[in-house]
């Protein structure tokens, strides 16, 4: 049962186009695309759509060069390419947050490059640590609701949003439990499986996904904890892909004890506040998020957060999954690297690109790191 559920979810994550195409038949809903890093998926869900994550993918870049040069991150280039080729035409709309310089430009260029897919851009507050930021974000979220209603000819009530938010809070709690439980089963839930199980949730109705991930959690909890003699690490960065690097983790007996990956735990690690309206709670989740390169902090907390994660999960090292040309992540790196080194925690820096074809150099880095630690 556990094995079948894992395989089903892995298959889902490995074939996003097929997965999105099957959503309508599964739950009768249309899909709406959500760009990285953070989008208010609850608004989309409240309108009766299934939000799907658009985190790039492996594709040959032919058309996107017209709008995004070679020095832009490969996720954005892939999204632009797929949009221009018509792959996203089945989506009823997309939401793009302007969380980095490239995303800001994509918000503008999308209108020209992919005019057939309605786009709603949104802007998060830069200085998040005052009341004005919270008020602004609440207003921005309501503006997104309004634009989304117009784009999709729907009506989204506060009650709809409250119900959707409750579903998402349950989902986020389930994912926090999954990552905690998975840590004790590093062989069944190896790095690749862990990543794919989390990713599968971005191509399914959250209620249906939760049924599956809870089966995985229960299945794992019913088993003895696994003995592991390899290296436990914390991963950090934008995205832990291509999946081939995670195969190398497995080959080199490296398991992910916890992550600070934008596509993974950063999506669900911050629970909502208990008090306030649903809009205040949605804004509060972004305001309260810590240690993320895409959200400014008065004092960077990422280094200490990673140190704490290493201690808490009894990990031996941190592996940085650095998406090439991701400015926010690259700017953060020297700061937390110095903090980790001061704390005596080994750090491996992997420069990644979604379109990598040869993994030999990366293999040598990962294997050498494992040899150094085992």
């Amino acid at each position, binding site marked *: 049962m556990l094995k079948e559920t894992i395989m089903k979810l892995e298959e889902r994550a490995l074939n996003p186009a097929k997965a999105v195409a099957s959503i309508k038949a599964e739950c009768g809903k249309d899909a709406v695309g959500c760009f990285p890093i953070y989008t208010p998926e609850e608004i989309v869900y409240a309108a009766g759509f299934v939000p799907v994550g658009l985190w790039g993918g492996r594709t040959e870049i032919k058309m996107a060069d017209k709008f995004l040069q070679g020095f832009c991150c490969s996720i954005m280039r892939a999204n632009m390419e797929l949009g221009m080729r018509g792959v996203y035409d089945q989506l009823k709309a997309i939401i793009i947050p302007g969380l980095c310089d490239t995303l800001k430009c994509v918000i503008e260029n999308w209108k020209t490059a992919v005019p057939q897919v309605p786009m709603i851009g949104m802007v998060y507050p830069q200085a998040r640590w005052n009341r004005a930021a919270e008020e602004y974000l609440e207003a921005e979220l309501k503006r997104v609701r309004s634009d989304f209603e117009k784009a999709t000819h729907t009506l989204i009530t506060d009650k709809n949003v409250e119900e959707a938010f409750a579903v998402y809070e349950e989902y986020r709690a389930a994912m926090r439990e999954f990552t905690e439980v998975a840590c004790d089963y590093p062989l069944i839930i190896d790095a690749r499986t862990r990543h794919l199980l989390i990713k599968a949730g971005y191509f399914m109705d959250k209620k249906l996904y939760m049924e599956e991930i809870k089966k995985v959690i229960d299945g794992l909890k019913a088993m003895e904890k696994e003995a592991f003699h390899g290296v436990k690490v914390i991963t950090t960065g934008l995205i832990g892909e291509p999946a081939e690097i995670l195969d190398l983790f497995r080959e080199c007996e490296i398991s992910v004890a916890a992550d600070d990956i934008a596509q993974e735990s950063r999506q669900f690690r911050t629970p909502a506040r208990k008090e306030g309206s649903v809009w205040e709670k949605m804004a509060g989740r972004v305001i309260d998020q810590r240690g993320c390169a895409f959200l400014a902090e008065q004092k960077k907390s990422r280094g200490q957060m990673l140190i704490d994660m290493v201690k808490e999960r009894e990990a031996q090292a941190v592996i940085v999954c650095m998406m090439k040309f991701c400015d926010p992540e690259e700017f953060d790196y020297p700061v937390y690297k110095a903090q980790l080194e001061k704390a005596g925690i*080994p750090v491996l820096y992997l*420069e990644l690109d979604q379109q990598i074809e040869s993994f030999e150099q990366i293999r*040598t880095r990962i294997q*050498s790191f494992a040899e*150094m630690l085992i």
Partner: protein
Amino acid sequence: MYLGIDIGSSSSKAAILDDKGALIAHAAVNEGTGTKGVERALELVFDEAGVEVDTVKFTVVTGYGRITYEHADKQITEISCHAKGVSYLCESAGSIIDIGGQDAKVIKIGANGIVENFVMNEKCAAGTGRFLEVMARVLGCDLSDLSHLAGQSTKEVPISSVCTVFAESEVISRLASGEKRSDVAKGAHRAIAKRVSGMCGRVGLKDCVFMTGGVALNSNMVKTMGETLGREIKAAPYPQEVGAIGAAVFAKELYEKA
């Protein structure tokens, strides 16, 4: 006997330790992965050692071609093997600058020749042996003569580009504008040294730094590296074969541990 094999991108190396751990043979052939280089290196090393293949108790393979080599008992990365090999040959070694045919690494060595930390160049030929190969071709000399040519320099010509392809164009235009070949050659050595010194800064260097890899056979490169870093840098003994020697040391350790 314990056998170490290092299949690099542009050369193949082999080394044999006897049962007591003494180095009895080592060989390098300038043909790398995907060629008959490894077979030739093995022929040479067994001839030199005067032993038969069936006396080998354990074999470790390393280098770029390690994954596809099927006749070893274990594969270990060249980073670990260089650290182990240099530590075996020079007990006091603290750091290694390893510049091979297509990549460069800076390695900090810990106790018992175990890697303490390392950095590796990104997927780019700048700062590697490939850069020198391209420069030698543009300057119209053999790779083995490049060091001598740079040694005749009286006025170093800076090569500003860090990209091998762009540097090639830059060198051609420098020569066209009348700069001496020797001065341009020295500039090419400096370009690599600057690139690699950035990597040294990222990982930090301990005392007693050795250069390994085929590029360490170029004495001017070792000298320029030392000048750029402002500290003494020595070529390791048998710099090209040191990875294979480290692999052989690992072979002995693993056999005895088993």
